[in-house]
């Protein structure tokens, strides 16, 4: 994910240390849970000097 964001031109990419247990105990079984899926917060900045718009 970080690579995709960087390739788009962003910098200062930061992933939160906190991970969210998003799918466990959901009313219906989640296929996503099979792959150790977690929620995360992500921050990134478009450079001030960005030339690509």
């Amino acid at each position, binding site marked *: 994910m970080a690579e995709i964001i960087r390739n788009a031109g*962003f910098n200062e990419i930061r*992933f*939160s240390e906190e991970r969210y247990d*998003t799918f466990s105990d959901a*009313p219906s079984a989640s*296929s996503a849970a*099979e792959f150790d899926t977690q929620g995360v*917060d992500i921050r990134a900045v478009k450079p*001030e000097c960005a030339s690509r718009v």
Partner: protein
Amino acid sequence: MATSLAVDQDVLRNAIKHEYEEVAAFPTKGFHFHTGRFLAARLGYPATRVDTLPDIAVESFAGVGNPFALGDLRPGEVVLDLGSGAGFDSILASKQVGPEGRVIGIDMTQAMLDKARESAAKLSLENLEFREGYIENLPVDDGSVDAIISNGVINLSPDKQKVFAEAFRVLKPGGRLQISDIIVGREVPESARNNIDLWTG
């Protein structure tokens, strides 16, 4: 996270639209993800912000994180919500940016747009609008946005590079992404990437 088009984009979009039409109409039906006030509390949204909102604004919330945990939005900012759903995060954002700011929510599911607009009207939020569109082709001007929020939506796109390229296009220089999404701890095999049920949850 898959980065290439592993499934037919139209088939995937229709499956996702159908799923989220259900979330809009029957939020307590029981999905493979949590919804509503229970989920908001689980993701750390302060009760002081959520408890004041009417049920229609919260019940179809289906995020995976908390974009506001990365910092509040500033008064006067222009904010874009990618995949705004029934408008929960957009509404919180509109209160943070205040009357001098503006929030634009983008979603492809009509039932969600209808519900979000009804909530905004009920709360008399005049700095908030919802537009129909795809996050891979944003109906937003170049360099016009201070911050982009999103919650559990970008993972639903089979073309994430295009999503972030569009985000880059519409942000002002110095503008920021403040998003929540999912990461996988285990490699997802090619067979699973072609499974529509996995894409939708």
